[in-house]
């Protein structure tokens, strides 16, 4: 556990020194077509997006515009019709643990405890570690999401918010190169959502895993992201606009809300969505 913390400490220390960041995720001319009885339905077309290492990008757009399709294509759970997706220059081949996913529904195995749920991924990614080491990794992340008292609780006995915390721990514990979040807090009430945003950003500040997150919530998009990507409405959705968020990290909700630029960003996003 201490090794883990030391490691993440080094990353946060050295991060500002790297000037030119590596290209982590590259979507080129991405296209998705669903065949329907009435002919082809083009969901995405000519979608280009570059995401740098250690960047947090949120994607916002109207319902049904193809955000989730895009994310599941990056995850490898949805076939690519045209164009390419590469991680660190290598085209992806199907799903894999280098791209961790936090689903909208917590998607925990309800018959497993929260520890077993996290271990399911950890065992898979660190097959050569000892059992104790793997346990430590899983427990470390469960502690980070505030579940140190619920290691051995069945997932089905946890509240929705607690389950999504396990989901976050499970995704970070497998140390993915890219973290994909598909509206992870969409099903939660606003209080719980705020709590989980804080937890997410706290872990992320330590781990700096490149993250792509879909959201419907303008404030959430601004609070979490380095860049907010706005998608046009489908069919043939593509990137409509990109907004750089220049708030310093680590951020707190208070400093963000009180920042002079906050309402300018917010207006920008809402104007785009209402357009």
């Amino acid at each position, binding site marked *: 556990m201490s090794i883990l913390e030391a490691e993440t400490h080094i990353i946060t220390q050295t991060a500002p020194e790297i000037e030119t960041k590596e290209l982590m995720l590259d979507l080129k001319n991405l296209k998705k077509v669903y065949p329907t009885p009435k002919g082809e339905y083009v969901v995405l077309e000519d979608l280009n997006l570059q995401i740098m290492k250690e960047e947090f990008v949120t994607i916002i757009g109207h319902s049904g515009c193809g955000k989730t399709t895009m994310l599941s294509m990056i995850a*490898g759970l949805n076939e690519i019709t045209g164009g390419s997706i590469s991680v660190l220059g290598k085209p992806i081949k199907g799903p894999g643990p280098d791209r*961790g996913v936090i*689903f909208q529904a917590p*998607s925990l195995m*309800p*018959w497993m405890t929260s520890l077993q749920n996290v271990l399911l991924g950890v065992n*898979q*990614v660190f097959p050569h570690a000892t059992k104790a080491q793997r346990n430590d990794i899983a427990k470390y992340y469960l502690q980070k999401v505030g579940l140190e008292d619920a290691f051995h609780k069945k997932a089905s006995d946890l509240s929705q918010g607690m389950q999504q915390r396990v989901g976050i721990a499970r995704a970070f514990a*497998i140390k993915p190169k890219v973290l994909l979040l598909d509206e992870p807090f969409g099903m939660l009430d606003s209080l719980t959502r705020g709590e989980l945003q804080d937890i997410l950003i706290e872990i992320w500040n330590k781990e700096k895993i490149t993250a792509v997150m879909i959201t419907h919530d303008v404030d959430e998009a601004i609070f979490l992201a380095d860049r907010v990507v706005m998608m046009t409405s489908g069919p043939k959705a593509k990137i409509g606009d990109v907004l750089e968020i220049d708030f310093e990290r680590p951020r707190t909700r208070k400093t963000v809300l009180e920042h002079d630029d906050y309402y300018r960003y917010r207006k920008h996003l809402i104007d785009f969505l209402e357009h």
Partner: protein
Amino acid sequence: MKQSVTVSKSEEAKWLEGIKVVLSKLQFKTPTFNLKKIIVPVISIVAFIGIWYLGAEALRQREINFRVEKALTDQGQAAANALQACFASNESTCQTNTLPSPTQVWASVITLVNDYYVVKQDKLDFKNKTAAVNAKRIAAGKAPIVYTGRASFVDIVIRSLKTVFAGFLLAFFIAVPIGIVIGLSPTLRNAINWFIQIFKPVSPVVWYLLVFMIVKTLLIGTSSDNSFLISFISVGLCAMWATLVNTAVGVSTVDKDYINVAKVLKLGQLQKIFKIILPSSLPLIFTGLRITLSVAWMVLIAIELLAQSPGLGTFVWEEFQNGSSESNSKIIVAMFVIGIIGFLLDRFMLTIQNMVSFNKSEGI
């Protein structure tokens, strides 16, 4: 002085208040005996027995009236009167052959229980009598002489339970693995589907005949009693379909989210089956197993009857053929025993289901 009085009063009031609070809490916490939960079933049981009694009495009267009237027209007034008196005296020669009343059934219960002790004593006597002979036979390498006398009602029930468990295990070991395999492979599912759809509705009688044809031929030349073998195989084959179909459905309809998790984590095929697919289909598999067990218990009677396996099925049929004054009430006793055991078997399965699977189902 005045002040102190008011203080003491208010203190008294406080005490009273405190006691009230404690009392109310006590009342709240002591499990208020839920009389409704006890009284309602008791009322319904009493009502059931009442209706049964009245119904049985009406049927008895109808039969008596018919027979007395018949005697009147055939043999005259004297014979009719004699018959009427005979019925009224409740003699064993003048019993009606209709639905027995609750009291008659209760009398049969006591008869069967007494009979159990009689048979038990018989067996003990037999064992003591043959002990010396059997010891010699075993020493000489021969099979010992076994008790072949009358079986008690308890022996009959045990025989039926053995048959149903053997049949259930057979169904389990056939249906669950096949269900998993065809649940995993849509191709195999299509290949086998016609087979399942055709054989699922086949009646227990036909299953028995089919098994009888095959087992009889396989065991040709041997003289051993194969009624147990035939009946449990028939029960198993007849009852396994619910488990087969439910297992296949459970395995093929695992929540897509779980499968996505397995894909993202790149779980191997075996891990995916044992860690995700099977646990998530356990509730459906168990629902299937519960149906299988209850179907097995239900068809058992018919199959034992046909196979002449000395269980409840044969008991019921022999009592019916026997036609003694008590046989109708013995049939009713068997009916209740069958019902109660069926209910207990289902509870037993439900308990196991709740122990091993993640979503708790209520027993209905």
